[in-house]
């Protein structure tokens, strides 16, 4: 079973072992389960995808292939979702309403996480808890800040950041839940 996480990102889809959101997700899982970061990183396969539009397309085109080998979660920034999935009507722009709109456009047994605003919310929360200035927005600064939070701070401080970004907390709980399930035999 392969647990796949699609991250909406601004960068080109080049995989990196030091990808900040992957590292932070793995550290949160490791904090909760009491395992090594290295082991937590092996629990899922994180893949940055350029833009919400790409993820919208992939949820239709590629999600069935990914779901063949295991659970899939798409992490989307809340700020672009409405334009893409609900461009005209916005009566149900609550969490369940948006998820419903996405699922009706791209049916599939995947999990959705909507980050409040975007990944920068997480970076801002991390800066707050570490008492550092919020740097200029870039993939590199995001990865640097998250790396500091992952390797240089306590689990208590990370929990404060998670509490500030409930969507991310849901993602951590989802990965923990799916890896806890018995692996179906091939």
């Amino acid at each position: 079973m392969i647990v796949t996480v699609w991250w909406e990102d601004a960068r080109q889809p080049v995989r990196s072992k030091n990808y900040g959101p992957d590292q932070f997700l793995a550290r949160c899982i490791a904090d909760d389960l009491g395992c090594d970061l290295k082991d937590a990183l092996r629990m899922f396969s994180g893949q940055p995808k350029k833009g919400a539009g790409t993820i919208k397309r992939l949820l239709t085109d590629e999600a069935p292939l990914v779901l063949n080998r295991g659970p899939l979660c798409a992490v989307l920034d809340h700020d672009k979702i409405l334009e893409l999935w609900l461009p005209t009507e916005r009566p149900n722009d609550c969490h369940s309403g948006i998820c419903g709109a996405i699922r009706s456009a791209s049916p599939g047994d995947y999990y959705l996480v909507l980050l409040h605003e975007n990944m920068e919310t997480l970076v801002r929360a991390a800066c707050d808890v570490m008492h550092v200035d919020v740097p200029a927005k870039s993939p590199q600064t995001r990865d640097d800040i998250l790396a500091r939070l992952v390797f240089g701070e306590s689990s208590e401080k990370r929990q404060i950041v998670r509490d500030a970004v409930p969507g991310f907390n849901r993602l951590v709980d989802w990965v923990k839940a799916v890896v806890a399930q018995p692996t179906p035999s091939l």
Partner: protein
Amino acid sequence: MPADRITKIRISNLRVFKDVELTLDGLTVLIGDNGSGKSTLLECLELLRHVGIANSFAMEALQESHGPFVDLLRRGASSLSLGVDIEGDGPPLSYGFKVSLTGTVPEIVAEMLFAKGEKPRVVLKRGQGEFYWFDESSQANVPITQVPAQMLAAAAGAQGLSPNPAFVRLAKALRAIEYHPPFEVRPIWQQLQLDRRQGPRWPSPANHTERLKRYGHEFPAALLVLRNDLQAWQRFLERARAALGPQLTQFSIQPAGSGQLDVLVHFGLSLTLPLRALSEGQLSFLLMLAAVELGRGRSVLAFDEPDIHYHPELVVNLVHILEDAAQTVPVVVATHSDRFLDALSSPSRSVVVTHMQDDGSVSLMRLKPEQLGAWLERYRGLGSIRAEGYLPHVI
């Protein structure tokens, strides 16, 4: 009868490998993270080549050339094993040996050669107090007395000490292993800084050779051999144009004084360049072509990251050349290039993924054709699938 070729390698307790075997059939492409054992696997081929050469394999190869022996051993292990299967010019052979650490030196503690054929039999056994080989003429096992304790029987066979022709085949096949690390194509100014004055950019002796020397040394002598085979030479010239351009007309080998030879490259009627003037990619591609053409009679051809310095289009050419060569000789390549993987005509057959497991050992995994087929409908090739992070989905 076709020449003998290596069809399987077995490795136990050597560096990152606990217990693996790799089947070689056509083109085998090793991919995997840094430190996952690709180069070690190729190094094992080089170690096996020494088996048929060294009078004291354990000391010469394992202790001095590739050692010290303790560095070759997997952590916690006290012995390592290597083995090969050989097919082609007679009944299939299966050979293996085990070397243990005795005090501070390696010692051969077990060795076996098994001929499968119509009458399967153990042709050689060493270990557990027995040391004999099978004599074809008397059809009986003969105790071995004349082979020194530090000598592998394969080398003894090569030196005519054995009464069984299987040893000659074994020694010949092991000596015919050819492994090329990246060629020494650095510009001359960089080589001078490293105080190196040897390689394809320098004039070299007109020694007799049958293969391209490692690192591309003595390239002019290899070209002389290649030029004697008109078909191979035409193919070499035609393929070389992919890197040097359509104006390439000929290579000439010139005396460079002191018994040395140099190569000139001719473009059209008016432009002639010395070989040393070529770019790293161009020179590396020429050396690769020569290695492939002269390697057609080898038991296995291995290249570590042959695509270094190549333009993406040249990488595609390289893949076609290697796939063509792999029809007659097993070819093993280690690479990190996604473009290389994209160009493979049959990735599910060719690619082997080296994967570091939780216990620190490396496993070898093949791709699942049915999974890969579905992904290839959406992506250009395996390289693009890997770049997107979907490699785990196809193994």
